[in-house]
């Protein structure tokens, strides 16, 4: 279970990014590759735990799953794979070590609201 470590790293990363800004985080968009070695549900749960009593409490975690993708030398094209048991091209069966997607563990965007502006218009 290293999702707890991942969640605290994520929290730290977001806090560092937003340092000095008067904003409230509404949602956090992540990309999670099937080969990242992280279990989505465990990460969601861990994130809730580590953000308790922080300014990120209640922020929504939006996780986009990224399937495995390889470049097939035979087909000369990128192919998206179904599982994680093999790196064979679904078209021609050729094995490829050239992974193009599926290892992501990435913080993509934050959706934030400026606290001051809300007070002015609210």
């Amino acid at each position: 279970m290293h999702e707890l470590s991942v969640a605290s790293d994520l929290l730290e990363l977001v806090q560092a990014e937003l340092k000095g800004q008067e904003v409230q985080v509404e949602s956090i968009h992540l990309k999670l590759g099937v080969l990242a070695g992280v279990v989505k549900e465990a990460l969601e749960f861990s994130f809730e735990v580590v953000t308790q009593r922080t300014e990120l409490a209640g922020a929504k975690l939006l996780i986009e799953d990224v399937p495995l993708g390889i470049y097939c030398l035979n087909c000369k094209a990128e192919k998206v794979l179904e599982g994680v048991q093999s790196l064979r091209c679904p078209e021609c069966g050729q094995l490829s070590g050239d992974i193009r997607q599926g290892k992501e563990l990435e913080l993509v965007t934050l959706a934030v609201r400026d606290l001051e502006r809300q007070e002015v218009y609210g």
Partner: protein
Amino acid sequence: MADGTVLVPPRILELRQNILKKNDLLARDLRQRFAEAGVYVLNLVSGPGAGKTRLLQRTLTELAPEFHMATLVGDLATQNDARRLQESGTTVRQIETGTLCHLEAEMVASYVQDWNLAEIDLLFIENVGNLVCPSSYDLGEDGRVVLFSTTDGEDKPLKYPTLINSADLAIISKLDLAEAAEFDHAAMHRALREMRPDIKILELSAKTGEGLEAWYSHLRSSIEAKKEASHVSGNPR
């Protein structure tokens, strides 16, 4: 809304950053230090009890006349593995991770801090026995070695694709038990190559010594290549 205010949509901040960035940056610094000092570093990963410590015990003892070696060994608790490895007379430090199921670059950095790396030819890092968590953490190593024992079952690699895909060398350990376990060598090789087509595979027994020569020659040539590279970049002639 009644008073005419429109809810402003949230502002989107594009970040595009690896969540484990902190670890990756530290690992990059470590890799740089290891490169400058010419230390060849291996990160050994396996499920609990696949034979990491026993292989290291024998390797440290048998290669001691040739190389200066050091070892960091990670475990949740106890100093047992470090004690076993210290019998070789080489430098060994135990990292007790407490509840953490893997080693991180930060721990490696703090444990090698006061070592004179230039004196070390080969640094082994025995990771915590776990087939999942260590795979996401770069420790600044040159190579990642995954061990599976002949008693683990030949379909194990299929269950841990992330780890296999991050490894450079697979060691099939406890070869002396293969026959009793009805181990299917070909099936194991196939399973490994499905997720890592170019992986190098060695089969050995730390008990009988079978297959160890190939492991040692892999270490010798890797150490030599690392030294060569550090001389080239260190003192341009």
